[in-house]
């Protein structure tokens, strides 16, 4: 299984949830949005995106539904569920704490 080398484990889930919190999107669009927002810094391979989406769906954080899309074909749109939204909030708090701690350590090393 190829893991995105430059992503902390579990971070991809957080990013996907955050993106879906804004609006429901299909898989390809999620990938595009990831690249746009992070200014191409976070290179998420298209390959690892789908297993992550399916896992989140199995866990009940997101749900999928087939809807017609811009190119006149139906696409699988993912959206956040209520438990998913709670989960995202918890994860964000967690992430804030973690990143604060890490940057603290990093600055300490510089000083």
């Amino acid at each position, binding site marked *: *299984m190829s893991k995105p080398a430059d992503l902390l484990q579990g971070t991809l889930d957080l990013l996907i949830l955050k993106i879906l919190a804004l609006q429901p999107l299909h898989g390809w669009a999620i990938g595009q949005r990831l690249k746009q927002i992070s200014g191409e810094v976070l290179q998420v391979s298209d390959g690892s995106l789908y297993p992550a989406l399916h896992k989140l769906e199995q866990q009940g954080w997101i749900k999928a539904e087939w809807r017609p899309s811009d190119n006149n074909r139906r696409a699988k749109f993912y959206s956040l569920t209520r*438990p998913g939204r709670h989960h995202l909030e918890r994860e964000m708090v967690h992430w804030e704490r973690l990143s604060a701690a890490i940057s603290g350590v990093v600055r300490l090393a510089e000083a």
Partner: protein
Amino acid sequence: MWWENWVHTVPLRLRSVFQREHADAELDEELRDHVERQTQENVGRGMSIEEARRAALIAIGGLEQRKQQCREVRGIRFIDDLLKDICFAVRQLRRTPIFTITAILALALGISSSSTIFAFVDAALIRPLPYRQPSRLVALYERLPVGERYHLSYPDYVAWKSQNRVFRSLDVYRPERLTLRTHTGVEEVPGASVSDGFFRTLGVSPLLGRDFRQGEDSASAARTIILSYNTWQHQFGASKTIVGHTLEIDDDTYLVIGVLPPDFAFPPAGPAGYWRTIHGLCAGNRFCYPYYGVARLKSGVSVPAAAADLSTIARQIASAFPASNRDRSAAVLSLTYAILGNIRPTLTALLGGAILLLLIGYVNISSLLIVRAESRRGEVAVRAALGASRTRLIRQFAVEGSVLASIGGLLGLVAAFCSIRLLLRLVPEQRLNSMPYLRELSLGWHLIMVFLLEVILGVVLFTLAPSVQLGLAQIQTRLSAARHSIVDKGWKGIGGNLIVAELIITVILMTSAGLLTKSFYRLLHSDIGFSPKHLVVLHISSQDNMSAARQTAIGREIAAVTAHLPGVTSVGVSGTLPVSDGESFKAAFAHFRVFGRYYPGVGDEALDLSAGVGYFETLKARLIEGRYFAESDDDSEPLVGIINETMAKQDFPGRDPLGERLIDQYDPDRSIEIVGVVGDLKNGPLGAEPTPAVYRPFGQVPSSDFYLTVRASNAPRADIPSILSAIHRTEPMLIADEADTMLNRIDSSQEAYLHRVAAFLVGGFALLALIMGAIGLYGVIAYSVSRRIREIGLRMALGAQRITIYQLIMQEAFRLASIGAAAGILCSFVAARLMSSILFGVRPWDPSTMTGVVAVLLTVTVLASYFPARRAASIHPTEALRTE
């Protein structure tokens, strides 16, 4: 919220399993959509179509791998593997049909027998009685020197009720037989009289109409009656308007005021269908004992505390009224015990037997699984070597165990369902009436829980047995060793131990069955003092008021008419019958004293019975001295009586009672001359101790309610119709019922019934256990032979004789059997002591039973080991040595 999460995930999981194709197609479409969009994007960046497509596919990193990953996160793999495991398990089981069928049957037998017995235990002992807070209810009796469950007099009831400080309420009841006049004629029906608060004390309110009101049980109150649900359903067509109707009962008019709820039953009062009040019966008479008591304890009061309080009151009454109450004290039993106490030990013993059988089933299957695991050691080692994880291997065993346990369990459940039906149908109607709670017996959730527990235990054991045997922890290291070992010590250890456990249980069950059967035989063949074969008995009564002379004449006439019937050799009438449980027996106690001796105020307790001319002769009783009654013993002559042997020994030790005189406490002006001594007849239930008895001639104490005993032809049952029709022709207004043969009457008495059920069921369990034990032993020995082929071949090549080989194999069987027998006999002592309360005439350590059991076990051991031994002895050395 976890459940909110499930709303999404559960349907997804289900879809992944049951709509796989659909889910896969969607996954396909999703990924294709992605590739197309990416291709377009790439084209937009100036690539050619082919290039754009290739780049998109590369970016996604291989469609098939992605799909596989997505499937995995969907949890498909686990289920896939499970399905494969199940298919594999079923294939494995089908490859060894004999093993599979044996294992499934063993489990089904164990589960069905234990579930069946548990259903009875549940209905009788676990489910609460159908009253409000039944644990707070107690049954009250008067304790006499002869026993503790005797009737109360009305004054005692009133005194107990008003003076006690322990009961919230106290009431009395009295089982009766009522005469109901209907448009078709007259019939005797079971009924009961109760004090007005009886149903309130039990916490039962009528389904229709009203309960008895306070004061409705006084002598002057209007006659009212409450019907049981069954009577209302079957006699009165469940008519809603029954309340307000009147019934003709015992020559009085009764107003129906209510109907009891369907689940109500009160076994101590018999199958009563008509409930009326006591109407002050025997009020003010201290020598009349018509009642039993039932009371509800105040909260916080224990049964012993209540007994102590009542005993104090009883002592005060006894000192105030010694003539009537000198020997009477109080007995308080919990109502549950009073109702169920007699069947509890039997049911507990049966449940114990069923559990042992279930255990044997488990042990048997586990040992079979171990044998099988052993022969699969190679296969398992190879699978482990090829990379199967430990959990995966154990899971394989777990799946096999589950398949076995579920099939066996389901079969067992079906069998249990059938056998419950069958057993219930085998319970005689009369017994069902005394155990009404069995009517409520069904497949309840208690039973389902026990059943599930049994299946789960099975799964755990059947998984553990082979896993532990193969020592799955260090499986890899055994790969080579397993293949080439000649004798496997480890297997012999566990397998042998299991067989010994199985044999121990078999011995316990066989010993118990032997003891119970012997006890049943002893009970049926106990000395009842007469010959019950070829006897027909029937009850005759009349609701007309008749003079004593007319009653005497009727008794004589009926006896004479019957005596002339073809096949009838002798006839006699009597007030009660021998071997009668319960009411008629207890009600017959009176007090007698010997004329001319010091008299402290109350005589000795003895049964006061009546016997007509020819009664003792018909029973073929044993005349010890003096004479039996003659036609001349009528009311024109001085009173005479015959006493039984126990009374003779008790009141006239070392003296001749003939010519001595007795005085009936309730008839102190006349004395009774003893004209004969008869050997003890079993008056009470089978198995009861002999009690003193005084028989008086029917001609001097006649009654319009008596029994007729007829010694008839070889097929006594066939004579019943002609006897009945002869009686009807002679005296059409008589009611003749309860016609039965004496043997059948004895056979279906409660004592005999419980003993028979216990002996038959435990006997059946023992037989099944023996069969399973034999199969287990055979399995172990046969397997051991197959493992030792090389060793045996070697021995024979080195010159061992066939007989030595027989010895070698059979020795092993006998070693296991003797350990099992010895330990089993030791455990049987404990089991037998536990059930000593239901044994009659047999000591728990009965040497002949034990010897018999050991003999049977050894015979079975010979059989189970002979065939494998013969196979071992017929091994050809050269072939054996060549086998791998």
